[in-house]
């Protein structure tokens, strides 16, 4: 359960951006990979707590989940995994450990009110 410390890092990061832009943050957009090791629901429930007493209080956290995408050497193409328990190309079945997407844990955008 490390979602609270992740939520606090998100708040710190957004707070700094808000200060730099002299703006109020209405929402934080986050890209969350399914291989990031962070659980969406746990993060959402920690976010409100992490915002308490900060300029981010009352802001929303909007999470876009990023599926796991591998590169298939046989197809020479990126493919989205159909299951986290099977790291193989969903088209041809070739195993692949070349993860292209899915590890993201990134603040992608902020909704600001000036």
């Amino acid at each position, binding site marked *: 359960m490390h979602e609270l410390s992740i939520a606090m890092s998100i708040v710190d990061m957004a707070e700094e951006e808000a200060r730099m832009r002299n703006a109020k943050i209405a929402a934080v957009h986050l890209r969350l990979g399914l291989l990031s090791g962070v659980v969406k629901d746990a993060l959402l429930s920690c976010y409100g707590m992490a915002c308490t007493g900060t300029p981010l209080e009352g802001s929303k956290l909007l999470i876009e989940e990023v599926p796991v995408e591998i590169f298939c050497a046989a197809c020479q193409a990126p493919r989205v995994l159909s299951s986290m*328990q099977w*790291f*193989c190309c969903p088209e041809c079945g070739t195993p692949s*450990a070349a*993860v292209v997407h899915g590890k993201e844990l990134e603040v992608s*955008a902020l909704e600001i009110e000036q």
Partner: protein
Amino acid sequence: MSTPRLVEVRKNVLKQNDVIARALRERFCRESVFVVSLVSSPGAGKTAFLETTLMLLRENYRVAALVGDLATENDAVRLARSQAPVKQITTGTLCHLEAAMVQTALEGWDTGKLDFLFIENVGNLVCPSSYDLGENLRLVLMSVTEGEDKPLKYPTIFNSADVAVITKMDLAAAVEFNETAALANIQAVRPGMKVFEISAKSGQGMEDYFNYLAACQDDLKAMEQVESKS
């Protein structure tokens, strides 16, 4: 009130950790110390495995270890029996190690005088996967008593690791460990993953693992020599 405006940011949430981890990795590489981290669930045998590793590697290499736990210095005391330098990192309530903790724990240590540094993470198969510690090699351990489907239940940690180690092989027959299923499950979540099947107690499989580490250390030294010439 004005309508909110959307501004693109694109910032990695764990940037602070990653920056420290990168600096640590550069330092380890420069000093030619090969750093191995260990992750597993509590009770998978990390400490016993590490104790045997330190004890036997000490004969030919300069080794040291950092051990992370929520509380107690028990593991450091146990590992100190190997005579290798060992430091405990007590995390309090934190369920994983972060790069900054490794950096702090290494203050006052001349890591340039080491060949291998081992970092034992807190027993947890979830949280440590998100944090880079600057290590060269991450081992994920699972014991034969845990069930062959561990990799399927925790695909993220197996995916963040480089090598899998199946521990307590001396108990395999007693617990009717299905080796074929376990190996297939590891390959399902991490195709091509190297696996060592060991017993810290009987010594089974330890030699192969040591040979592998020795080859890694040789590669690192060779790489450093090439870089210092260029």
